[in-house]
Structures are given as C-alpha cells and as structure tokens.
C-alpha cells in the first residue's frame, strides 16, 4: 500500500504543476481504467474538484456501455465534459476495415488534433503508462508536441528532479503524463484501495471472458478469464506474462511507434 501512496503523491504533484502552469488545460478521458484512475487522482489533487475539462475523443465505435458510464460520472462528479469527433472522416465512412493505423490516425489522432485546434488547449493530461508499450517507456512526464502535433523523441527535453518543461513556444503544446510510473497491477490495486467505480466490462460475468483493455469495439478483443472481482484481476495479472495490449490490434509491428510519432496518445 505504501508504494501506491508514493505513486499517488508523485501523480498529484504532477497534476498540480500542470494546473499551475497551463491556463488552457484539458484531461483526456477514455473511460478506461487508467484515465479513470487519472480522473480520480485529479479529484485527490484538487480536493474533490476537477478544475479543467475532461476531453473525450469519440470515435463513434466505442462500446455503448462506456458512453452511459461516462455520462453518469460526469453528472455525479460535476465534470466539465467536452466531446470531440472527427465528423468529416466519419461522414466519409472511415472505419477499421480501411486499415487499423489509418482508422486510428483519422479518428483518434486527428480527432484529438481537431479538438485541440478548436479549443486551443496548451496542456493535455493523458493516462498513458510506461509499461504499456516500449515507446511510452521513453516518455517524459511533460512531453512537448510541435505545431503538427508531432513527438520528437530523438530530442526530448531534460527532466530534472521535479522540474518539468512548463514553458513552450506558441502553437505547440505539452502532453502531461502523471501515470508513467504506474503498472497495470498498480492501477487495479489503487482502484481497490480507493474503491473507484469502474466499468464492469473488465470483469467476467459468467462466460469466461473479460476485457483487459478497452478501446473501440471492432479493434478490442476480450481475453479468456474468469476474474470477476478486482482481487481476482490482481491475482491473474500477477501470474501472467502476456502483455496487456495483446488484445489491441494497432500495436502490431511498428504500429505504435508510427502512430505516436504523429501525435497519437
């Protein structure tokens, strides 16, 4: 438990630094376990308040239960919810059958890009974790993006102690990653410790499957699992050697490296 409080202290510090330095700040919320823990940490950091909007980039292919959950928490926690969508791409019929990287780029990366342009956010808080995949392992807590949203991972700014990159030239923005040091197990341990409401898609409801990671319905697949409580999830994760995102199609080959360079979360 002490390790969870240590992780919490660091994440809260990062969130407060972000709030202090960015006038136009938003937090991405996909309703998945990570960004929901992130949202909870914001409520910790700001004593029950969430003083910035929560942004949901809606691909329209999300599992319907996720939208219900989103709207319920937004009401209960008095969240300022901002939903963005790449309407043009959807109107032109974009879907995963045109290629997964193409679809993710259009609906998520560009959906986010459109939202950023529209609202002029200069700081975006995201729930990515370093243990998810290998390019995220190399991220900074405060990570600059240029005017095209691109990530120059060859030349990242130094990050010394708790001094982060909080100033930046016009037309660029900073991605803030308070969960980098958390593992998938830590997320579930923390959900249990704090009793955070989460989507029951993560649990087996009798048919021997559950989702380990939630994305768009066509590209996320449930895993075989009988874990029906948080405790059972933790137990299962401790015993497995299978990567979390194994059920995510866009991670194949160099998919993530290519996507993230161009501004994917």
């Amino acid at each position, binding site marked *: 438990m002490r*390790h969870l409080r240590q992780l919490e202290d660091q994440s809260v510090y990062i969130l407060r630094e972000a709030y202090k330095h960015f006038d136009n700040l938003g937090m991405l919320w996909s309703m998945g376990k990570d960004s929901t823990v992130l949202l909870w940490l914001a409520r910790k950091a700001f004593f029950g308040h969430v003083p910035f909007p929560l942004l949901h980039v809606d691909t329209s292919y999300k599992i319907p239960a996720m939208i219900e959950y989103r709207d319920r928490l937004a009401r209960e926690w008095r969240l300022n919810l901002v939903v963005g969508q790449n309407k043009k791409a959807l109107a032109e019929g974009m879907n995963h059958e045109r290629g997964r990287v193409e679809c993710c780029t259009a609906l998520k990366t560009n959906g986010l890009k459109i939202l950023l342009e529209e609202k002029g956010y200069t700081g975006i808080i995201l729930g990515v974790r370093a243990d998810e995949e290998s390019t995220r*392992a*190399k991220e900074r807590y405060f990570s600059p993006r240029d005017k095209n949203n691109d990530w120059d*991972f060859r030349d990242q700014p*130094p*990050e*010394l102690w708790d001094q982060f990159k909080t100033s930046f030239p016009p037309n660029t923005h900073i991605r803030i990653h308070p969960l980098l040091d958390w593992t998938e197990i830590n997320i579930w341990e923390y959900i249990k410790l704090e009793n955070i409401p989460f989507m029951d898609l993560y649990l087996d409801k009798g048919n021997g499957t559950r989702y380990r990671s939630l994305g768009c319905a066509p590209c996320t697949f449930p895993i075989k699992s009988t874990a029906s409580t948080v405790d059972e999830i933790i137990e299962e994760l401790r015993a497995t050697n299978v990567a979390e995102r194994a059920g995510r199609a866009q991670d194949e080959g160099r998919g993530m490296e290519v996507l993230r360079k161009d501004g994917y979360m």
Partner: protein
Amino acid sequence: MDTCKAETAATVDIRDRMNIVIVGSVDHGKSTLLGRLYADTGTLPEGKVEKIQAICKQQGKEFEYAFLFDAFLEEQQQGVTIDTARTFFQWAGRQYIIIDAPGHKEFLKNMISGAARAEAALLLIDALEGVKDQSKRHGLLLSMLGVKQVTVVVNKMDLVDYSQETFALIEKEYRAFLSQLDVTPQFVIPASAKRGDNIATPSPQMAWHTGPTVLESLAQFSSESEQAEQPLRFPLQDVYKFDARRILTGRIASGRLKVGDQVIFSPSNKSAVVQTLEAFNIEPPPTQAQAGQSVGITLDEQIFVERGEIVSHESSLPLVSTTFRANLFWLGRRPLDMDKSYLVRLATHEVECRVAAIHRIVDADNLSLDQHQTNTVVKRNEVADVTIQTKAPLAFDLYSDFETTGRFVLVDDYDVSGGGIITEMVADREETLRIEARQRDFAWVTGDVTLADRAKHYGHRAALVLLIGPDTTGKTFLAKKVESTLVAEGRHVYMLDPENLRRGLDADLQEGDAREMIRRYGEVARLLIDTGVLLISTTNSFRLPADQTVEAIRTLVHPAPVLTVYMSQETTPSPIEADLSFTGPEDFTSTAHAVLTALKEKGIIAETIGNQPVFQFSI
C-alpha cells in the same frame, strides 16, 4: 533458469518500490545487462524474445538482449540507446522501475533525466576497455544528482578470461575515483551480461567472487529515506480556493508537518498555525504528514502567501540570500553565458538570475584540480563551479544539508538547460538588514485586524512607491500629485519625505551615516505599511547610489511590493531597472496617471473603490 523463475514470487505482496538507473560509458553493456536480468528471471512478457529474435534475424545480426528495451527503430538499427526507458521489474516483494540510460556523450541530457529519477544506480565498466571518460563523468553526475547508492558492475568479464587481476585493477581505480566524491560503492561485481555470469545466477567461472550477483545486489539498496527525520521543508506549490477552504498545497521535501504546528514562510517571514490537513476520500482526515507526501493545509489566519515560499519551523529556517555558490552541469544548446539572464527554479520558486562568476570548469578526470581559470561561458555537458545571483531574495539550503531545497535548475528560453547543487551561501550586502527584518517580523505583535482586512477596507494593498533620479527632476512634485489624486479617490496614501526624519529621528546621526539613515527610514516605512497605507517617497536625502538605497529599503519592507519610478532631465539610463521611467516630464497629470495605472496593473490598487483588489503579491 527454472529455479529463478520459481523465485520471482510475483504473487508476493509488494512492500515497497524503488527506481534504479543503469549508467556507464557507451557499449559497456547496460542494455544487455537489463535484458539479461529480465530474461534470466523469467519476467519478460510472453513472445518478446521471439519478437526480438525475428528482428535480429531480419537485420542479419546475432541475438541482442539490448533490443528488448531499445525500442525505437533508430536505436535498433544503430545498436545504441538514444533515450532512457523505464522498465518494470518485480522481485522479492519490491517493485522496481529500472531506467536504462544512454551512455553516449551526445545523449547526456537523457542520461541525466533518467538518473535524476533514481534512488540507486548500477554503474557499468567494460572489463576490456576499463574506466573511460564517461564512466567518470557518470559517476560525478550521479553524486550531483543525489544518487548516493551505487553498485559498480565490471562487465564483459568473458572478454578478459574472467581474470581476477584485471577486475581488481579496475575496482581499485574506480573506488579511488569515487572516494573523491565521497561515494563508497555498495558492491563491485564482476559479470558478463552477455553470458549471464553473476547477473541472476552466480558464475562458476568466477568462484573467487564472494559478493552478490547483480540481482541479489538490488535487494541491498535501501528504499528508506532519511528525509522524514530532517527538519521540515515544505515548498509551497499553489493556493486553492475551490470552496470555502483556502488550501495551501505542496509536497513535503523533508521532515514532518502536524496540525497545530507554528510554521514560518521564507523568504516572506510570515507565520501562522496549521489548522487542518486536507485530503480527499481519507477518513478520518490526517493530522500529520511527512517527507514525500503531497499535501494540503489550511492556516488559522488568512495570511497571503504564494507559490515559491518554503515552509519550515522556526527552529530550523532555510537560508535567504540573492547570492549562492553552486556546482552546475550545463545541457543547453547554447553555452551558459555570464552576459545573459536565466530563470532559476528552486523547488517551486522561480526567479530571474545571472551567473556572477565562473570559478572553474570541473574536469571529471581530475576532480581535485583547482587551477585558476578564466571562463566566461560553460559549454554543453560541462560541469562548473559558479556563483549565481538572483534578482530577488531566494530561500534555499545547502545541498549537503537538504536535497530538494539545495538544488535548482536553470531555464534558458523555454528549456530546462542546466541543474546544480548549492555548495555555499554568499552573504549579499543586505544580509544584516535581512536578519534584522526576519527577527523583527517573527516577534511582531499584531492586533486582530490583518493586512488583508485593511486592504479590503481601503481598496488597495499597503505598498511603497519609490521615486529615484537626479535632483530637480520633479520627483517631489510628482509625489504630491500622486498623493492628492489618490486621496481624492478615497485611498489611504501618505507622502513620506525622508527629510522629515533628519531633524527628529535621525538627530543623533552624522552626515556620513547614510546606511543607518536608510535603516531607520526602512523601519519607519515598515511600520506605516503595517497600518495599510500606500507610501510615496523620494530618496535623494540618503546620498547613496540608487541601487543600494532601493535594495536596502526593499529588504526592510519585504514582502510589501515596491514600485520604483525613475525620473531624469535628459535620457540618462536609470541606474536600476525601474518599473517606470520618465524623462523631463512636463505633463505631470499624465505622469501621475501612468503611476496609477502601474499600481493597478501590479494589483496594488483595486480597479474601482470598494472592489477587492487583485492580489498578485503576498501581503
């Protein structure tokens, strides 16, 4: 390797966590060691080895463990780590983040970013190549970054026939180097990352080694921090007012904080009692907190304090000065230049600064060498001994006493470009007055009316407007004009002419006692400011250079805001960086108006009477 796998004990509850960095010169085997550590403990994700095997085959290369974490295409093509990777490793009840740092000189800033996050380090030295430049540089940087626990791994022992003599020579040389930095390695381990000798299992080739394997040595690093046992340092991060509570937040850098504690804010010298510790979803609310925790507190009094102040107990205060000496490493694209100004960020305080002196460039090869050098710049990746001078007083500690409040970064334009540790406080000219002000403030007896109450009542904050410049430039005339304009608006303003002190309060002083005259003037101003008044004053009576006059007064009335106005006949540049400058003004009405506007912009005067002023400074 099956025995190891059984021991991974991933199902064991995690007791603590720790960040470890792997450093050392390029190609000495850091990434290989990391890969090996995971492979031999059975902690790699399923399919990962197969994936790397396929990549190696495709590139026509031998299998490289390094590719497990060198994720970028460029890294694999060039066989070099470019940026640090956080990797997650769990062993014997402890959760590790192992940070693989690049060894290449070109990526030193990435190595530093990785090492700055670590509590302990594995430092690798290639047995065949021996101790290299970068091996020493990394050792030096570890000590500057606060990584005190170091285990040295002499790697590639397979290339020197597992020779004990070769190992002993390298051990001796590197221990001698580290001792100059006051660092004693916990272990020096002979190993071969490629073959797996002494990584996760003891090496039959080196039976002469009686110490631990690399894996065993990890458990020997202590994750207990002594910081909680030190005096309190709580750098203020922000002040929130989301609801009825006014919450001061921050992360405790050292010591403990309890409800009921009398605390002091430095450098403003304000004090108050901690009323509550605020927390979300924790029942019952905590009554104390300690080093490492991000907390929120409320105070018994609504004193106005702001980000950057350091909260402590009165029994152990941080140092306050505008000048300090430091060891600094520079990572900027442009060299560190004595003619440029930078931002120094120390804990949460941010203030403009200059490098007043570059005493020497530290040579990692020759640490103790204290040759006389004349440098005006510090180049990228160099370490230097410098004196830094800030524009406003800063609260800090010596690095040898306190880690977090004893180190700082320099920001050039948009980028953090260097970091340093404070080795010495340099007393500046105002040191004596600052101590006087501090002691007087701690003992100051107040009524029930606070400065904030007065500010609300008068529609402005207590402040001081200082008019400087040559004689007969209309300073007194302007002072009168500003005073009467403001009083007509219903503000509480007073023109304090220093001449008025001369024959009364200063009657016992001689012409030459300028410093004492300023001191008395400053104390009078401090008193009046405590009544909530906005003071306007000329300064010629003191017959001292304007910068000295202003600094001394500022120190004594600190932290009340001081607005400086420079007036001259011709366009002679102001001897200080004044907030406002006027040349031979003819239209004093508009000049007075400009002063009023500046007071409003600074948040000293509320926009309209009766409105609560916007506070940008602490009261």
